């Protein structure tokens, strides 16, 4: 027992820490646009997620890996700012327990735990996850002086993507800066790209996946747009509206559930993700494209790795 107690409570891993650093701008943006309530949600998700993993690892006999915080940050930032506290906590428990620990803990999760938790919430509590967005705060001091959106701001505020379906375009500057309604951490394209480039530069995220994701997305969106199929319209507009940038930098690159073994695998994985996002956005009745595309791509990642490795072995043999 003495041996177990002396073990560290948390095992910090450098790539995971870097992802967290990369997410800090998005966290600040979420406080600015949606008030301090978003920080409270972030804290709740982190504490419940950590406790879930801690209890599952037999109360400290093994250290909790820092990956749990990355999952928690991503889950919290992908939720709408008006979400009830208990719902956010439930998402963290489901994501960590059934998305990660049930599969054997860190390094063995097939799916991105954050997206598992979010998918659970999204399908279970459709109202809170899809129809209760908040208007962002603007000007100085913005959300830094407010706790959260008041009831008047909340009712059915549409996001730029859902507005577009009705033919209303949000101004470009707003889209890029992020004072639009949406999930807590996914609105500010500029800050997300900054953080994203940081983690790609530090090799915490594989650049092949990110570039592949962008290529797949833009090509598919352009093809759909030109053929007049897609509701999402202009590819650049579609890129900045919604959570694609957040997804392609931070969600899809999660090292355990992504296809990480080979370079061709990374490319295919990223491109597949980009295309599937466009397809889901254009045709699905449940347009949480980034989330479902991530889960779908996760599912094929082990198969990709396996097939490519097998092919290489065959080539070596001949």
């Amino acid at each position, binding site marked *: 027992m003495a041996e177990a107690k002396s073990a560290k409570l948390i095992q910090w891993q450098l790539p995971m820490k870097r992802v967290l650093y990369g997410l800090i701008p998005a966290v600040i943006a979420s406080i600015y646009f949606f008030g301090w309530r978003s920080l409270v949600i972030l804290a709740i998700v982190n504490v419940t997620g950590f406790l879930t993993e801690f209890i599952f690892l037999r109360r400290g006999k093994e250290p909790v890996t820092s990956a749990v915080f990355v999952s928690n940050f991503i889950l919290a930032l992908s939720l709408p700012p008006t979400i009830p506290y208990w719902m956010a906590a*439930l998402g963290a428990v489901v994501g960590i327990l*059934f998305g990660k620990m*049930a599969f054997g803990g860190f390094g063995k999760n097939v799916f991105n735990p954050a997206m598992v938790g979010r*998918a*659970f919430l999204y*399908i*279970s*509590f*459709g109202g809170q996850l899809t129809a209760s967005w908040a208007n962002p705060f603007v000007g100085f001091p913005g959300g830094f002086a407010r706790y959260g959106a008041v009831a008047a701001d909340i009712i059915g505020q549409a996001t730029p993507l859902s507005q577009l379906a009705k033919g209303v375009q949000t101004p470009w500057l707003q889209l890029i800066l992020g004072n639009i309604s949406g999930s807590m951490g996914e609105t500010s394209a500029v800050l997300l790209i900054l953080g994203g480039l940081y983690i790609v530069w530090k090799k915490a995220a594989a650049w092949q996946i990110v570039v592949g994701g962008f290529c797949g997305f833009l090509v598919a969106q352009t093809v759909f747009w030109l053929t007049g199929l897609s509701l999402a319209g202009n590819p650049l507009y579609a890129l900045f509206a919604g959570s694609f940038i957040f997804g392609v930098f931070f969600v899809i690159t999660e090292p355990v559930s992504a296809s990480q073994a080979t370079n061709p695998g990374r490319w295919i994985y990223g491109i597949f993700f980009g295309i599937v996002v466009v397809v889901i956005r254009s045709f699905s009745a449940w347009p949480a494209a980034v989330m479902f595309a991530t889960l779908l791509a996760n599912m094929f990642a082990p198969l990709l790795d396996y097939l490519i490795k097998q092919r290489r072995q065959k080539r070596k043999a001949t």
Partner: protein
Amino acid sequence: MYSEFSKGIFKENPIFIILLGLCPALAVSTQVVNALGMGAGVIFVLLGSEIFISLLKDFIPERIRIPSFIVIIASFVTVVDLVMQAYAPSLSRNLGVFVQLIVVNCIILGRAEAFASKRKLAESLLDALGMGVGFTLALLLISAIREILGSGTITLLAVGRFDGVILIPGLSSQPARVLALAPGALLVIGFLKALFNWLGMRKASRTVWKLEKMSAAGAPATGAPAGAGGAS
């Protein structure tokens, strides 16, 4: 003899251990009452067909045994289907085509082929009961989880004034809807299977540990203190 009955409930539970009859388990486990009805139907068909097949096993030619089994099973399923339509029409509507599909349910055909066609009548009878009860219990567990968490209710048979639906305060207003939908069935069965596997593994490792302790106790004194110290 008793083990022929009990093995169906735990050690060879049709749904969680040998993974038979998953299709109806996925489809009808949305409400507890469906699980009860389906379970009762399966127990009846299993009993009837295993008894008949066990009795007739010497007269059925090897080559056409499967079609013969199907004919026997289908007769009992027809009985269940008609009785259900007559006396429990709402249940019959809920279960829909899955009552008729008991004909091709792999639990029944599987037990007929693997057990009843080779064993004596009494053993087959106990096996049918055990498997049927095991299936029903598993279905009840799945449907209880799905209905309580996914809809916030427990639906039982309507008796007299009681309409059969128990609302669970707090959950019925905002249930986790995903569990009531189709993916919920797969998730619940998958994670329950994982849980039972884990329990089985733990039990196995405990038995090994017990055996080691017993042998350590019997061994010379040098080995025992070390083992005891490590355990406490």
